[in-house]
């Protein structure tokens, strides 16, 4: 496989995953805030600020955020490089340059996705279409994931795409955790009990489509500890950082079975980070959330740049 | 008698922004022929980028360099040692000289054989309605070409920096200034206009005698004299090519003989500085 094309497939996977998480975050955060228990959590400013933080949009930190403005920029603004519509555009652009390697079915579903997003009327989106648009984005990404799994040969091409998907998933989950962690702090102040039982943990779980399964496992109201344990360390939760790391490791091994022992290889670095998370307990995390989140983000981006350096630089 | 020459060629490239990948091709190696023989070739570059000998589309030896990694300047240095046997520009026998074929069939064959050097090119195209040197039908081709050589020498004033590598003759003739390339292109244009095959030659000139040619690579012309062969004319100095003219390549015009061609991946502009030095030692 060409190095440039591998790069494109990797990023195709990342952009598809990114669009999905952003859309879901917007959807869940916005609608669950409407009837949130505390007045802080209900405030428009609060929920908009949370969206801005999660997506990394550059918006003035002071001043009042305008709802339609924020929704437009995150959702359908073609001029905003990190908007959902641009993620989809990039996913399709990357797919297009590699379309000789992927299945017609996969390309067709990405292409449909693209036409859906660029043709979505902005006026409708910011007034009444938020639910419709974000729901359709998450559903279409699920279809695309199905096509990736079901119509591609599970060889190096598949491995590259899955590396992108899983790395992006781990990153987006961590960013969502970060945003909701800050929301919980903000809503409850330094009050320990409030923080521990904050409503924001429920929202966090819903943002990651993990609420039902978490309740099934813990059978209790989510707390900061149980939520973070589930979303970071539980290998069976398909959205957890641990699960993503396991998948990343599995796919790098397909790509590069011989180099796992080479300490400069991506496989080695991924194996090392994965082992570190595998043998972490929630007690290691519980006392310094903030640092832990920052470290996770930087480990994940180190994996990203190591993969790029090893396979895509030419 | 043989003469020993040492030629040093230096080029320095600077770029506005770091370059990710670049490729260069140097057409600077003195060629081997009956009069000149290479003893040694030395080449180096400041980035230690890998390089190789190759051949261009006209079969002249080139050096090709490919460099990866972020850099903003790179310099190249080549040193050539060669031996030349002294050439007398008038050594050919003028008694062998013939005119252009008069029989149409023969003329067609002649024009087919030399078509590459009879066609005009964007750089050697004569502008319309400009009075230039006229051949005198009473004289033979060689005399006319000698006349053309001095006419070009007198018409243009040698002025460094007056023109670029892609200045058309129209501009050159308007300003009556130029460097050796422009002198050569003008010579080629008029010779070809009269049906005489003529080609552009790039090379080095040993400047011991105070010739024009800058401290850069030199250019002159070769015209094909029926019955004799290719003869070198240096219109920038109003002489025939001598031992001190060290030939690298020939072609239709400058663009076939550009000493350095390069492409790079990166943003912004770039600049190149060349320096050439030719030294001699009689043996």
């Amino acid at each position, binding site marked *: 496989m*060409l190095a440039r094309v591998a790069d494109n497939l990797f990023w195709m996977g990342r952009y598809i995953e990114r669009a999905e998480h952003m859309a879901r975050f917007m959807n869940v955060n916005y609608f669950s805030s409407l009837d949130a228990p505390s007045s802080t959590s209900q405030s428009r400013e609060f929920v908009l600020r949370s969206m801005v933080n999660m997506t990394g949009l550059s918006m003035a930190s002071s001043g009042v955020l305008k709802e339609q403005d924020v929704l437009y920029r995150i959702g359908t603004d073609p001029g905003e490089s990190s908007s959902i519509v641009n993620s989809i555009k990039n996913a399709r652009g990357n797919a297009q340059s590699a379309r000789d390697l992927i299945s017609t079915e996969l390309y067709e579903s990405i292409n449909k996705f693209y036409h859906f997003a660029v043709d979505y009327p902005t006026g409708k989106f910011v007034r009444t279409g938020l639910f419709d648009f974000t729901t359709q984005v998450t559903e279409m990404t699920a279809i695309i994931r199905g096509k990736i799994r079901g119509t591609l040969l599970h060889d190096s091409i598949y491995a590259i795409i899955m590396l992108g998907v899983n790395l992006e998933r781990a990153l987006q989950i961590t960013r969502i955790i970060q945003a909701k962690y800050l929301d919980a702090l903000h809503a409850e102040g330094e009050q320990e009990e409030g923080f521990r039982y904050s409503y924001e943990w429920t929202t966090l779980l819903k943002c990651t489509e993990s609420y039902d399964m978490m309740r099934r496992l813990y059978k209790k109201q989510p707390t900061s500890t149980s939520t973070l344990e589930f979303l970071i360390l539980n290998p069976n939760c398909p959205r957890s950082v641990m699960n993503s790391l396991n998948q990343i490791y599995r796919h790098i091994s397909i790509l590069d079975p011989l180099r796992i022992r080479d300490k400069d290889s991506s496989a080695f670095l991924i194996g090392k980070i994965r082992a570190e998370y595998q043998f972490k307990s929630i007690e290691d995390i519980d006392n310094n959330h903030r640092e832990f989140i920052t470290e996770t983000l930087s480990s994940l981006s180190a994996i990203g740049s190591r993969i790029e350096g090893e396979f895509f630089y030419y | 008698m043989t003469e020993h020459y040492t030629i040093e060629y230096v080029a320095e490239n600077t770029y506005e922004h770091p370059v990710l990948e670049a490729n260069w091709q140097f057409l600077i190696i003195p060629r081997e022929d009956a009069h000149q023989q290479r003893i040694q070739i030395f080449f180096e570059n400041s980035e230690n980028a890998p390089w190789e000998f190759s051949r*261009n*589309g006209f079969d002249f030896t080139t050096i090709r360099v490919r460099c990866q990694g972020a850099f903003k300047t790179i310099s190249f240095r080549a040193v050539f040692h060669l031996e030349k046997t002294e050439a007398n520009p008038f050594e050919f026998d003028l008694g062998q000289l013939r005119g252009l074929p008069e029989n149409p069939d023969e003329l067609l064959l002649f024009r087919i054989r030399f078509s590459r050097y009879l066609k005009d090119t964007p750089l050697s195209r004569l502008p319309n309605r400009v009075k230039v040197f006229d051949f005198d039908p009473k004289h033979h081709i060689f005399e006319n070409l000698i006349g053309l050589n001095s006419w070009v020498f007198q018409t243009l004033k040698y002025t460094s920096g007056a023109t670029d590598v892609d200045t058309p003759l129209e501009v050159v003739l308007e300003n009556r200034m130029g460097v050796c390339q422009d002198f050569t292109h003008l010579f080629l244009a008029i010779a070809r206009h009269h049906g005489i095959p003529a080609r552009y030659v790039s090379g080095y000139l040993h400047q011991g005698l105070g010739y024009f040619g800058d401290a850069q690579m030199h250019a002159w012309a070769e015209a094909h004299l029926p019955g004799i062969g290719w003869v070198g004319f240096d219109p920038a100095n109003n002489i025939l090519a001598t031992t001190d003219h060290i030939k690298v390549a020939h072609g239709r015009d400058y663009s076939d003989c550009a000493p350095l061609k390069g492409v790079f991946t990166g943003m912004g502009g770039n600049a190149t500085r060349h320096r050439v030095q030719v030294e001699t030692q009689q043996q």
Partner: protein
Amino acid sequence: MYLFTKPCPMQKRNTLFSSYPRDPGLFDELFDQEGKVTKVYSKLFNLYGKNSISDYLELNNKAKASFFNQGITFQVYNEATTREKIFPFDLFPRIIGAEEWAHIEKGVVQRCRALNLFLHDLYHEKEILKAGVVPLELINSSENYLEQMVGLDPPGGIYNHISGTDIIRHKDGEFYVLEDNIRCPSGVSYVLSNRAALKRAFFGVFNHYDVHTVTNYAENLLDQLERVKPGGVDVPTCVVLTPGMYNSAFYEHSYLAKTMGVELVEGRDLYVENDFVYMKTIMGPRRVDILYRRIDDHFIDPLEFRQDSALGVPGLFAAYKKGNITIVNAPGTGVADDKAVYTYVPDIIRFYLGEEPILKNVQTYHCSRKEDLEYVLDNIRELVVKPVDEAGGYGISIGNCLTDTEVEEVRQSIRNAPRKYVAQPILSLSVHPTFIEESQSFEQRHIDLRTFTVLGPDSSYVLKGGLTRVALRKGNLIVNSSQGGGSKDTWVLQK
């Protein structure tokens, strides 16, 4: 679709063509002079006739959506914003009978072989110029003659591996060659996707005809390409070189790479080391032996040709010259598909093959010849004037459509640069029923045919089908997609 699954013996009234406006002055592929349906079309005419216009409209819309979703689109420039468009596709196929096809196939192969010998000669002994059959001036003034190719022997002696020959049927019923395309002819992917789309929409009709398949193009192409591999290579690696995804023919490039099962590369994926060409893969460099390039000559190597080109591969020509890679088509083929050379093709065929041309040429006047120039200036109303070196139907003026001022303008441009123009009598391209969306009915539209020939050292392959292009604007004779043309699936019958 349930349509056509049962042949219906009862001949109902054919509503689809009830209001078909037929101009008896034109050659209609479907109807003869008396308005009777021709033999090859009769079954199809009956089968299609069982549909109503609204059935047809629905299928047409579905086919369009399928092209769009699959991304079989091209970019349209010269508008405020770049837009994605599908190449309009007409669901009524064009049928060519077995006998007529045999004639076309023999004719295009003859032409391609002769042009290949012509190219070899132009870059070696130049016998045809010495014999005065083709004027030296014609070659001298061609910008597509590559001096760098002189004396070079491409592997297998093949220059024009892939040729696209444009053929029309005149109102006299005869086929004429309109143009040879031997640089990077495009359009073959549309042949294949048109067939796929028609099969989906009207699969039933295929049961009634023995139509030659077109899906074997890629394997035949790869097979012929592998026969011209460089010396010393056992299992060659072939790649398709594209200018990139913003090129209007990118879909075709990726389609060809995919169906041949080879990598689709851009110039930046390749590099040259020790005069060998390598591609950069995730597992390191891998040698490339055969380069099917879809980039024009002047852009393939910035160190040898245009230095400002970012599309090519630095050093590629040096590798080619050394015989370490095969470039397809060979550089320098453009000199032989120039519209000015076109007129000499019958003489070229006679000169190299000692045969009479099987397919006719359209009478062409060269404005560079004095007597032709006068004829053209005097008879401009009856002629099509074409610039010699423009592709895609640009710059063409059709005499009987011009205003007096325009006639004068064309005359002036010809006088200013006679070498740049050729003229041909206005041909009456045959017409074919074509579904017109605006009027929601079938109307006559002019068509041509682009055939695709793959030439190997000792065998050749002609795609049994080809691209029937149709001028969608009423009365328009220019079928190029850039000029609002569409296309039809083309059936070549087995018997």
